[in-house]
Structure formats: structure tokens, C-alpha cells
């Protein structure tokens, strides 16, 4: 164990894994709330075009991929806000166009599809020092708003219309969420890889919702689960000599699978039994008055009182009497 930690490339890889594990579920919490669980996958495809472009032009892959993915994310969100993203065909074209363009450009660059695979499924040995610095900066860029604006982003992603009636800049926050998702996707490409990053954004969130109750608790729990599986997957991939992304995602799904029975138990316990409430008034009851009623109903008159809407009925020989002005009504 100490032997791995003394390897510089492993130190960098583990740091990158910690940052990815913290960030992906944090932004993923809002993505899941907005029911855009597959958005991360699509943005990953778009980022591949960025990697291809970087290989073609000889630039560093992460900055180019960030720019391309953010541009893709803003396009997707603008389409959605204009109400035109009902054409999910449009999204499919954007996403698969990105993937195809990436593969094509990397081929032209002479790197071939093999060079892409380290970005698709992650690769521990490729995290350079400058990569790590960039990942650290971007992680901060994502973490500050996801935690600092948590109440606002929660409101916007869980009930957009209500957030609007609270005067929130809903459009701006929605764009912020997808832009941060795009940044997260690209900085995760060294550890989990672009094809599997979406799983790290979604699966820990789903597990956290099973394990704890409440939005903020789930946010923190998802980040803890994400960090755990990211570090575990990175370490495990060193020993098994596999792509870290695959192991990270498999571990996340194992945690989710374990959280399932836990949620079953706790949910059953938490569901407090509810008293049966009175059936709804049908409003059509005919007005039947009792004929001459010498007995004065009241608390402690011996007849059982039953709350009925805004008054009390008294059980009276198998039926109910209600006080009405100077007489009693049959109920």
C-alpha cells in the first residue's frame, strides 16, 4: 500500500480520483433532480470531439475538451429553454456528431482510436502535473457554486416554476448547472473516462437517496460515496491492471445495490401509520331534521361525539345527530 503511495503517478491519479469523486456526485445531485441523468453521457460524447481537436492541433486535451463540452452544454440548454429540445433527435445528432468528430479527428492526427481509449475509460498513468493543477482549479470552480448556491440550485432543479415566483434567475441557474456538468465531465476524463463519467454523476446520488433522508444529507452522502468508489477504483485498477473507470463504476453500482435493501428497511420504519381521516364531504346530503328532540346533546351527555367537518355529531341509536340552530339534523 505505502509502496503505491510513493509512486508519483499514483499520487497524482489518486488526487485526481478524490477530486472527481467529490465533484461528479455534487453536480450530479442537481442533474438527477432535473431528470437529466443521461445529460452527462451526452456531454461526454461532445467532449470527445474536444479531445480529437486537441490531438489534431497538438494542444493539451483538457482545456480544449472543456471549451467544446461547455459550448455543447450551453447549446443543449438553450435548445431546451426555447422549447425546441423536444427534438431529442437534435440532441442525438449533437452527441453522436461529437463522438464521430472526435474519432475522425484523432484518426487524421494519426493517433487512431487507441489514443482515445485512455480518455474514454480513464487511465491512471496519464495524469500529468499540469493536468492535476487544472483538475484542481476546475474542481474548485465546480464545488464553490454547487455548495454555495445549494438552496438556489435545489429550488430551481426541484420546482422551476416555484423558484421563478421567488424571483430566482432560473435561466441563469439552469445554464450554470449544465455548464458545471460539462466541466465535471471533462475533468473526470483522466480518472473515470468520458464514456463512464455519467455513472459517477448519477449512481452515488441514487445510492445516497436510499441511504439518507433529505436533500442536503443526500448531497453530502453522495459526495462521500463518490470519493470512496473513485479512490477504491483507482487503487484497484493498479492491482488488476484495468481501466480505472470501469472499476469505479462497478464499485458505485455495488454500493447502490447494497443501499437498496437498506432503503427498504428504513422506509418501512419511517412510514408512520396514519389515522384514517374522515371521508370527504359529498356536499349533497339532504337536510333531514329530527322530529322533536327533548334531549340536549353536549359534551358528557352520554352519546359519543364524532367530529364531522366543522361541528360535532352525536351517535344516537345507530345514527348521528348534529346541532343545527335550534334543532338537530340527521347525518
Amino acid at each position: 500500500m505505502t509502496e503505491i503511495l510513493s509512486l508519483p503517478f499514483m499520487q497524482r491519479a489518486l488526487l485526481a480520483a478524490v477530486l472527481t469523486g467529490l465533484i461528479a456526485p455534487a453536480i450530479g445531485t442537481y442533474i438527477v433532480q432535473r431528470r437529466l441523468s443521461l445529460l452527462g453521457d451526452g456531454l461526454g460524447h461532445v467532449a470527445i470531439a474536444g479531445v480529437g481537436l486537441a490531438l489534431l492541433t497538438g494542444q493539451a486535451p483538457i482545456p480544449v475538451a472543456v471549451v467544446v463540452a461547455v459550448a455543447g452544454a450551453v447549446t443543449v440548454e438553450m435548445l431546451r429553454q426555447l422549447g425546441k429540445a423536444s427534438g431529442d433527435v437534435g440532441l442525438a445528432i449533437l452527441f453522436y456528431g461529437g463522438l464521430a468528430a472526435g474519432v475522425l479527428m484523432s484518426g487524421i492526427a494519426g493517433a487512431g482510436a487507441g489514443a482515445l481509449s485512455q480518455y474514454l475509460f480513464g487511465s491512471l498513468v496519464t495524469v500529468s502535473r499540469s493536468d492535476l493543477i487544472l483538475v484542481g482549479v476546475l474542481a474548485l470552480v465546480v464545488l464553490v457554486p454547487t455548495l454555495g448556491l445549494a438552496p438556489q440550485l435545489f429550488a430551481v432543479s426541484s420546482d422551476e416554476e416555484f423558484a421563478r415566483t421567488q424571483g430566482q434567475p432560473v435561466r441563469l441557474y439552469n445554464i450554470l448547472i449544465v455548464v458545471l456538468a460539462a466541466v465535471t465531465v471533462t475533468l473526470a476524463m483522466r480518472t473515470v473516462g468520458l464514456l463512464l463519467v455519467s455513472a459517477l454523476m448519477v449512481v452515488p446520488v441514487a445510492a445516497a437517496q436510499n441511504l439518507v433522508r433529505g436533500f442536503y444529507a443526500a448531497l453530502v452522502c453522495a459526495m462521500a460515496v463518490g470519493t470512496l468508489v473513485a479512490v477504491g477504483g483507482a487503487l484497484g485498477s493498479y492491482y488488476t491492471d484495468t481501466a480505472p473507470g470501469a472499476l469505479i463504476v462497478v464499485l458505485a453500482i455495488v454500493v447502490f445495490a447494497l443501499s437498496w435493501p437498506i432503503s427498504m428497511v428504513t422506509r418501512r420504519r419511517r412510514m408512520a401509520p396514519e389515522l384514517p381521516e374522515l371521508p370527504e364531504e359529498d356536499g349533497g346530503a339532504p337536510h333531514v331534521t329530527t322530529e322533536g328532540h327533548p334531549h340536549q346533546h353536549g359534551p358528557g351527555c352520554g352519546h359519543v361525539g364524532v367530529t364531522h367537518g366543522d361541528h360535532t355529531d352525536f351517535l344516537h341509536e345507530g345514527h348521528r345527530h348534529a346541532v343545527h340552530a335550534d334543532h338537530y339534523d340527521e347525518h
Partner: protein
Amino acid sequence: MTTPAVQATGVSVELGGLPVLRGITVTVAPGEVVALLGGNGSGKSTLVRTLLGLVPAQHGTIELFGQSIARLRSWARIGYVPQRSPVSQSGAKVKEAVAAGRLARRAPFHPPRSAGREAVARALAAVGLTDRSDHRLSELSGGQQQRALIARALVGDPDLLVLDEPTAGVDLVHQQVVARILSDLVGAGSAVVIVLHEVGNLAGLIDRAVVLREGRIVHDGALGTLGQAHRQGGGHEHEGAPDAPELVRGPVER
């Protein structure tokens, strides 16, 4: 003269090319309780959503507290209770969902203040959900969820409360809670706009009824005899509460 809470003039709305509201002009004064009535598809829900800026109006002007809806700053004065909210599927706790109603009073990147937490506790107490504040919204019954949405609107101490069918499909206990909350609010001088399918036990609170039919106002005035029949002493209505079709037909045939 006091600024009206709501001032809509000549508002027309089209949804998908179909006219839903046609030339609606309506005013709500501070402290007034106005019921919006009408059958299904009469446009009453669309009207409140338009008044809040959630649906764009093709024609006409809407002012809340004297400010145009497009440039409204005083969102903190407005509380909105939708019929349903996707927040109930979010896994959030009741108190977390309710706290969203304080956002108009809260600047970004500022930690929560104790005043906000106290307001959440007060609002939950007002709707009788104090013991449920740590439950998930999805664990509550339909009526309780509806009450939580009312608490979310109350938590910002609104001067204008807009409710979209708060009593549809819920139990009697809940209807009484709604009636009590409304009378407290009105006592404090807030204006209330409430969409109702049937007036039920809220009749006594309503100052004015606006009846819509096919996107037009067909009646704007006292609830009149429709809702008040046979209501004195300790009894309740037995004649059948006035329901929407009756209300809609009444003024039109006159």
C-alpha cells in the same frame, strides 16, 4: 389611494395557438379575498399562472403591487401554492422544501439565518405539520403535501397569496386548515387569490368571486346567494355545496 395587489388589464393568452384567456381585466385590492371560479378548461389556472409571470401574456399588462410583472422586484411579497409540485418527488425533507419559500429574501452565497429557520418552524406549525418536518415530502399523504406547499408559500410572509385549487381532492380536515390559514392571513391584511372548483367551506371568507368561462370573465362581484344558502348557527351546508357548473351557468343565463 392604495396600490392594488394585482392589476391585470386586457390580458390575453394563447397556448399552442388556441386562445385560453381573452381580454381579462381584474383588480385585487390589499386585504381582499378573490375566488376564481369556473369549469374545467375555463382558464382559471392559466389566469393565475399568467398573473405570476409563469405563462407569457400576448396582450395586456399585469402589475403586482404597482410593478410590471416583467420587472418585478418584490417577489418576497408573493406566495404561490401550485396544485402539485415536482418537489414532492425530489426526496427532500418537508422543512427543506418549505425553506425554498424564503429564497426571495435570501441573497446567493449567504448562509441561512436563524430568522429563516424560525419562519419555517412557524409556517409548519400553522399548517399542522410540525411533527412531519423531517419526513420526506413523498412520505406524506396528498392533503399533507398540499399543506406543505401552503407552508412553503406562507414562510415568506406574503402580502399576496395565490392558491391554485388548494382544496381539490383533499380531506375535510385539510379543508378546515386551509380555511383557518386564509382567515388568519386576511386578518393580517394580505390579499388572496384562490382558484376553486367548488367553494365549499371557504364561502364565508370570500369577498368577491370572479367566474371565468371560455377564457372570459362572466361574473365579477359578490359570491351572493350561491354560497351562503342555509348557513347559520352551528350547522353546515346540507343543500349541496355550490359546485362549478352551477356557478358558471348562473350568471351567463341571467
